[in-house]
């Protein structure tokens, strides 16, 4: 079933890459220079690394039938803390640890609102989305804080044959895949998303699991925020990670994870994030004004969602019976 769901996103990805090859013949070329791998494909991966990382955290949140809108703000806070700490003369490891610790706290806060107070995730995380960016601006006093630290720069712009950002994202993705798919954890997360009440009655600690996924999402957002600010050696509280939550959610949805929860695909999220980043790069290469990217994004999202819709599958000729788990109450997702 997952394979079937991944079909359209993979076709979209292949189509985008093909389009790029037509426009730029050297698109697929990779070259090694000073022990670093360069090429358009590497660039796509590198620029997409923060989104991919956040999307991994988001996948688990969405699998529990939740959503986390605050990740962009959390990323901005992480960057702000890291950069202000270094700019004030602190050392890099402390800056990173401090930033990530604060992000974990923010995640605990989100998880508390959702799992203990029982507030709808969309609105619980909206609080931090609104206030968080204000907080980040408070930290940077509304300025763009620039830092000059080669160690800090490594996180977002460093190379270890491949850019370090890619390695971090892939490591997290692989780690989560191993942890959730080789143990029962993934199944428990899906159980919470499929039916919180039933899973609780079955002895699943649904509250702890829900809480944990929000903390993990905030942690991923924190790392991504450090990557973003390290890449440009500056913290921009206003624009760092702006709309990245939307990109991450789109990546998750394009990858076939339903917003209704109960089922997730990390492989799908990887493909989804790649589709989004390739699309952005494609628009650059073709030479369309960058802001029009949004238009293409909208078209791709709607197309992929419509193609994945059970109803479309039925219209196209009932190739496949509607999977029993696919259509669920539409109302859940809105909340």
């Amino acid at each position, binding site marked *: 079933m997952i394979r079937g769901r991944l079909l359209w996103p993979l076709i979209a990805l292949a189509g985008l890459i093909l389009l790029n090859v037509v426009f730029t013949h050297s698109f697929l070329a990779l070259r090694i220079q000073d022990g670093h791998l360069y090429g358009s494909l590497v660039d796509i991966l590198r620029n997409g690394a923060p989104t991919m990382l956040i999307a991994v955290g988001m996948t688990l949140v969405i699998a529990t039938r939740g959503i986390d809108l605050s990740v962009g703000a959390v990323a901005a806070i992480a960057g702000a803390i890291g950069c202000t700490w270094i700019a004030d003369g602190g050392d890099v490891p402390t800056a990173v640890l401090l930033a990530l610790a604060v992000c974990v706290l923010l995640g605990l806060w989100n998880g508390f609102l959702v799992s203990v107070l029982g507030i709808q995730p969309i609105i619980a995380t909206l609080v931090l989305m609104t*206030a968080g*960016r204000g907080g980040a601006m408070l930290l940077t006093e509304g300025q763009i804080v620039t830092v000059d630290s080669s160690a800090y720069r490594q996180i977002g712009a460093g190379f270890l044959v491949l850019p370090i950002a890619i390695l971090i994202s892939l490591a997290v993705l692989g780690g989560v895949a191993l942890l959730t798919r080789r143990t029962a954890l993934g199944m428990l997360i899906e159980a919470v998303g499929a039916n919180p009440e039933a899973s609780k009655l079955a002895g699943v600690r649904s509250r702890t699991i829900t809480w944990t996924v929000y903390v993990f999402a905030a942690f991923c957002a924190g790392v991504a925020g450090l990557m973003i600010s390290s890449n440009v050696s500056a913290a921009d509280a206003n624009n760092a990670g702006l709309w990245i939550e*939307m990109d991450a959610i789109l990546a998750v949805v394009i990858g076939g994870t339903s917003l*209704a929860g109960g089922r997730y695909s990390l492989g799908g999220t990887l493909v989804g994030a790649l589709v989004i980043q390739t699309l952005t790069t494609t628009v650059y290469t073709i030479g369309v004004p960058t802001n*029009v990217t949004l238009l293409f994004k*909208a078209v791709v*999202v709607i197309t992929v969602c419509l193609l994945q819709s059970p109803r*479309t599958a039925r219209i196209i000729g009932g190739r496949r019976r509607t999977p029993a788990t696919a259509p669920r109450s*539409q109302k859940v997702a809105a909340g």
Partner: protein
Amino acid sequence: MSTSALASLRPRLPQRFLPVVATLVVFAVTFGVGSVRYQDFASGQVVANLFIDNAFLIVLAVGMTFVILTGGIDLSVGAVAALSTMIAASTLRAGWPPLLSVLAVLVAGTVLGLLMGLVIHYFDVQPFIVTLAGMFLARGLCFLISVESVSIDDPAFRDFATGTIELPGDVTVTYSVLVALAVVAAAVYVLHLTRFGRTVYAVGGSETSARLMGLPTTRAKVGVYAVSGFCSALGGLLFALYMLSGYGLHAVGMELDVIAAVVIGGTLLAGGVGYVAGSMAGVLVLGTVQALISFEGTLSSWWTKIVIGALLLAFIVLQRVIVRQPR
């Protein structure tokens, strides 16, 4: 304001009005704080300015209330408003008569909303994703029309924007305020005195029950997005009047302000509970917070965001407390 103070209100007041009353109390309190701290704050003109500066937000909040009442959400409102300013500015520049231009904007917004509603209902895709795509689409279209800001020079449009109405007590308001109040009145009528409004509440309460009762749920579910699209377009026009320009980066993030206003106004995101008047009060609360922070002068603008976040938190916790009370 403590919950015990609220509890004492309960016997006399139906519980469903409680969130709206709480919003009004918060509005009174924030405004009271302003009048105590600053001598010029408690004037009729400051109240009028709240309406003048937030007329577009009120209209957007009305549309959003319809959608949230059915249990949906519309993330596209800010982008559609921006698209409206863009369409208005570019058509006026092309020499269209203002009325035709306004009509084009309203039709475009409504059609976009209708399309999103149809996709949500017939293809069973979550409102969050569809309206997110709608947001990207509308912003993309803005930049397709023009990457730069387009100013509005049409004399009739400018007259309407700058024209004021004298009210008793040396208070002046703009025509936008009248439009916004008319929209609120129309929305109250539609929600409480028409079949469509009743179905909207029923769908939010329980879609299955509403359908089994034979109510036209499809029409309501698709219709609210068209209503929201229309309100976004109208709100965008008011915003164009306010800014006298069309720009693709107008109203960025406004959907969040609108959702915050609706939630602060006491509408439950689960659907079925809420009032348009509450949403208007929510907008006024946000407006007062902004006015307070600008009166204070020394506070930086980002405090607005923090305060809005805190208010949002206070209200959702309050709503949880109310919902958890045994009925």
